C-alpha cells in the first residue's frame, strides 16, 4: 500500500519536492554550507543523480579522493557513479573484486594513508562480510592507536531499505548494527538535496562514516538540487514540519511515509511535528528532546525490525530525558521481527495507516 502510494507520490514529484523545499529553508540551510541565494534552486534531479553530483565534486575538489566498489567503473548498478571513471580516470574510480571485506579493508588502508576513500557496498544486505573490518578496524583505528593513526577519510556508501520487490537480500535496513559501534558515524538522507549535502559532509568529515542511501528514492525522489558544492551539518536533526500534538521521528525513505501520515492526521485535527534525524550516531538528542517537551508525545518509525532497532534507543533516551513531560508511552511503528519478506512486503512495512493509527492511539492515550 505504502509502496504504491510512495511510488505514485514520487511520480507526481509531490512530496519530495515539498519536503525538500522545507528543509532548504529550514534549520539545515546555512551551517557549514557555502552561502547561497535563498530559493535559488538548481535543476530538479533524482537522488542517484544528486549522489553522483556529490561524488563528482568530492573527486574534483580533492585529488586524494578515490571511489571504488563492485561495478562502480561503468556507473554502478544504481547509476550513482556514472561518468566518474571517464572524468577522473581508472586510478581513482575503479571496480574491485566481489568481496566486501576486501573493499572495506582496502578502503581503511587507503584512508589511513591520508586519502578520502569512498567505498561502495552494492547493497546494505551485503555489508556483513565487511562487518569485522568496519567494527573492529575502522571504528577503533583512531582510538586504539591513541590518535597515532586514523582512517577518518573513509566513507562507505551503501543502498538500504525496501524497494517493493527486493525480498530478503535487497531490502534490509541494517543501520542499528552500526549504531552500536562507537567511532562510526551513521548517516541516512531523505531526499536528493539532503543526500548531496550530507554525502559531501560525510566524505569530508574526519571520521569513518557509513552512509545509507534509500534505494527506493534513487529514482522516485526528485527535487531541486543546487549544482554547486555544499555541505549539510552532521549530528544535527531537522524539524521539517512544525506541530504541537505529537512528535514523529524517522530517517531516510520512512520520512515520506511519516509525512503522508502527518497530512492525514492534520485532516483529523492532529498537529504533528516531524523530525528527520539524518545522523543516527552521534545523534542530536537535543532537537528531539525539545520537540517532545513541547508536544508531550513521541512516535518513532523505521523499516528495520522493531526489536533492537534504533527506535528503541530513541525511545529509551527520550523516556529518560522527558519522563515528566510524556503524556503517553513512546510509540514505535517499525518493521516486523521477521526476515524481510517478498510477497508479504506490504504487511511487513510500517505503512502510513499503521503510523496514523499509532498517532491516534498515542494522542488519545
Amino acid at each position, binding site marked *: 500500500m505504502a509502496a504504491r502510494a510512495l511510488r505514485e507520490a514520487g511520480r507526481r514529484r509531490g512530496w519530495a519536492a515539498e519536503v525538500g523545499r522545507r528543509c532548504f529553508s529550514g534549520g539545515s540551510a546555512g551551517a557549514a554550507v557555502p552561502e547561497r541565494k535563498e530559493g535559488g534552486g538548481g535543476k530538479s534531479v533524482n537522488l542517484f543523480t544528486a549522489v553522483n553530483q556529490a561524488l563528482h565534486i568530492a573527486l574534483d575538489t580533492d585529488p586524494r579522493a578515490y571511489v571504488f566498489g563492485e561495478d562502480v567503473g561503468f556507473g554502478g548498478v544504481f547509476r550513482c557513479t556514472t561518468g566518474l571513471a571517464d572524468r577522473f580516470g581508472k*586510478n581513482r574510480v*575503479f571496480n*574491485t*573484486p566481489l*568481496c566486501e*571485506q*576486501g573493499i*572495506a*579493508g*582496502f*578502503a*581503511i*588502508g*587507503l*584512508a*589511513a*594513508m*591520508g*586519502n578520502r*576513500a569512498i567505498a561502495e557496498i552494492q547493497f546494505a544486505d551485503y555489508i556483513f*562480510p565487511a562487518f*569485522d*573490518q568496519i567494527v*573492529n*578496524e575502522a571504528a*577503533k583505528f*583512531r*582510538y*586504539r*592507536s*591513541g*590518535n*597515532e*593513526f*586514523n582512517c*577518518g577519510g573513509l566513507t562507505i556508501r551503501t543502498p538500504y531499505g525496501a524497494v517493493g520487490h527486493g525480498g530478503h537480500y535487497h531490502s534490509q535496513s541494517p543501520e542499528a548494527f552500526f549504531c552500536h559501534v*562507537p*567511532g562510526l*558515524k551513521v548517516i541516512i538522507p531523505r531526499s536528493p538535496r539532503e543526500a548531496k549535502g550530507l554525502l559531501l559532509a560525510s566524505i569530508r568529515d*574526519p*571520521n569513518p562514516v557509513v552512509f545509507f542511501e534509500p534505494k527506493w528514492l534513487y529514482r522516485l525522489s526528485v527535487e531541486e538540487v543546487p549544482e554547486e558544492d555544499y555541505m549539510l551539518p552532521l*549530528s544535527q536533526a531537522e524539524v521539517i514540519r512544525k506541530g504541537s500534538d505529537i512528535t514523529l521521528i524517522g530517517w531516510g525513505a520512512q520520512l515520506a511515509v511519516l509525512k503522508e501520515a502527518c497530512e492525514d492526521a492534520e485532516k483529523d485535527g492532529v498537529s504533528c511535528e516531524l523530525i528527520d534525524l539524518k545522523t543516527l550516531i*552521534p*545523534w542530536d*538528542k*537535543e532537537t528531539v528532546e525539545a520537540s517532545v517537551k513541547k508536544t508531550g508525545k513521541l512516535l518513532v518509525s523505521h523499516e528495520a525490525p522493531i526489536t533492537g532497532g534504533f527506535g528503541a534507543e530513541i525511545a529509551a533516551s527520550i523516556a529518560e530525558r522527558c519522563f515528566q513531560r510524556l503524556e503517553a508511552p513512546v510509540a514505535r511503528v517499525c518493521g516486523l521481527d521477521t526476515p524481510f519478506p517478498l510477497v508479504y512486503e506490504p504487511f511487513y512495512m510500517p505503512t502510513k495507516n499503521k503510523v496514523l493509527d499509532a498517532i491516534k492511539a498515542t494522542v488519545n492515550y
Partner: protein
Amino acid sequence: MAAMWLARRAARRLPPLLSRHGGEPTRPWFLGSTAPPPVLGSPPLPAVERIFRRGFCSVRRFAGESSAAAAAAADEEEPENGFAGGDQAIDFPGGKVSFMAEMNFLPESHGERIKCYRVLDDDGKTISGSRFQEVSKEVALKMYSEMVTLQIMDNIFYEAQRQGRISFYLTSNGEEAINIASAAALSIDDIVLPQYREPGVLMWRGFTLQEFANQCFGNNMDYGKGRQMPIHYGSNRLNYFTVSSPIATQLPHAVGAAYSLKMDKKDACAITYFGDGGTSEGDFHAALNFAAVMEAPVIFFCRNNGWAISTPTTEQFRSDGVVIRGQAYGIRGIRVDGNDALAVYSAVHAAREMAIAEGRPILVEALTYRVGHHSTSDDSTKYRPVDEIEHWRTARDPISRYRKWVQGNDWWSDAEESELRSRVRKELLQAIQVAERMQKPPVAELFTDVYDQVPSNLREQEQLLRDTIMKHPADYPTDVPV
C-alpha cells in the same frame, strides 16, 4: 610452457573432443605425481556436443570483447570459419585456453614440496653457490645486536608478566631473524602493517626499549594511551601501524596503503606480517586477490611457525604451506628459511625491489617455529612435545646460527657478546622501572579519540562518570588521574 604446447599439439591431432583416449598422453599433472586423478569415462555424445557448442558461443562472445592483443593471438591460430580456432583453443579473458581431449583434473599438489631458499647452513656457513644480498659489517652487526636485544626484551618482559607487573605478554622467540632481517631489508618509508609477533621490526626502526616498556605498562607515555593490551605497539613516526588483535585484518589495509604509495609515486612499498593461521582468514584471500588485481606494491610476509595457538598447520590447511597460494592469485612468491637471517634479508630485499619497480605484490613464506608459548595465557607443552620445542630452541636457533656467521667473519667476539647482553639487560630493567613508576593516562583520555572531537553523548557520560568517581572513589584505581 612445454606442457601447454604439448597439450595444444595433442588437441590438434584429435578428432575434436570425441576420442576418449586419443592423442599422446600429455598429462602435465602427471609429472612428479604418484597418484594421478581418476580419468572418468567419456560422457555421452550429446553432452559433448552441447559443451562444444557452448564453447563456440563463448568464442563468439569473447572475440567481440577481447583486447587487441587477444585478437592478434587468435589470428595466428588459423581462424577458419570465423571461430578463432575453436577446435583447438578458445579466446577467453586472461588469454587463450587450449582444449584437450582427456578429462584431466588438476592434481592437488605438485608432488615435491616447494623448495626453501637458504643462505646459511646449520653451522652458519654460506652454502656454496648461494646468491644473497651483501650485508655490510655495520648492518650485519646491528642486525645481530637487535636480534639479541629482542630476545632479551622478550625474556625480561615475559618475567615481568609472570611477576604480575604487566597484564600480558607475547614473545617472538625463535622468530628473531624474521623480525630483524626483514626489517633491515626495508626502508623507513616503507609502511609496516604488523600482526603482533613482529616487535623487532619496530625495534629496528628505532622504537626504544623505554617506548616498548611504556606500552606494556600502559602508562602516560604509551602512544596508545593505555587503551590496548601489552604488545599492541604502534608508531606514526616509524610508519608502523598500531597492532590490533583480530587476525589478518591488517592484510587488506596493506593493499590500500600500498595502492596509496603507488598513486603518490613513492619509492616505497607496504609490508604486512601474519602467521600460518592467519592464512585461513577471509581477509588473507581478499587481500591477495585485491593486491594482484590492483597491482599494489605490497609484501605479504607469512611467518609459518607451525602453530596457531594449539592448532598445527596440518589442521590449518592442506596446501603445500602458504607460498603456493600466491600462484593461484597471480602473485609471485618465495619460500625462505625463516631462521636464516641472510636468506630472509635477501628475499625481502629482492621482494621490495620487485614490488616497487614492477608495481606488484610479493608473497614471502618464512618457515620457522614459535619457540615460545602463544602468549602468557598459554602453555604450549599441553599440545606439543617438549623435545620438539627444545630442538628448535637450540639446534635451529636463528640467533646462534647467525652469530656463527658473524664471528666467522671476525666481526664479533665473546667479550662483545657479554658486554652487549649485560648492557641490554641493564637498559631493560631501567626501562621497566621507569615505565612502572610513571602515571597512567588520565580519565579524560577514556573519552578522546573515539571521534576527532568528543561528541555530546560522551561529554555527558564523562560527567556522569566523574560524579560516580566522586561518590565511590574506592571502586576505582588510584593510579589513574581523575
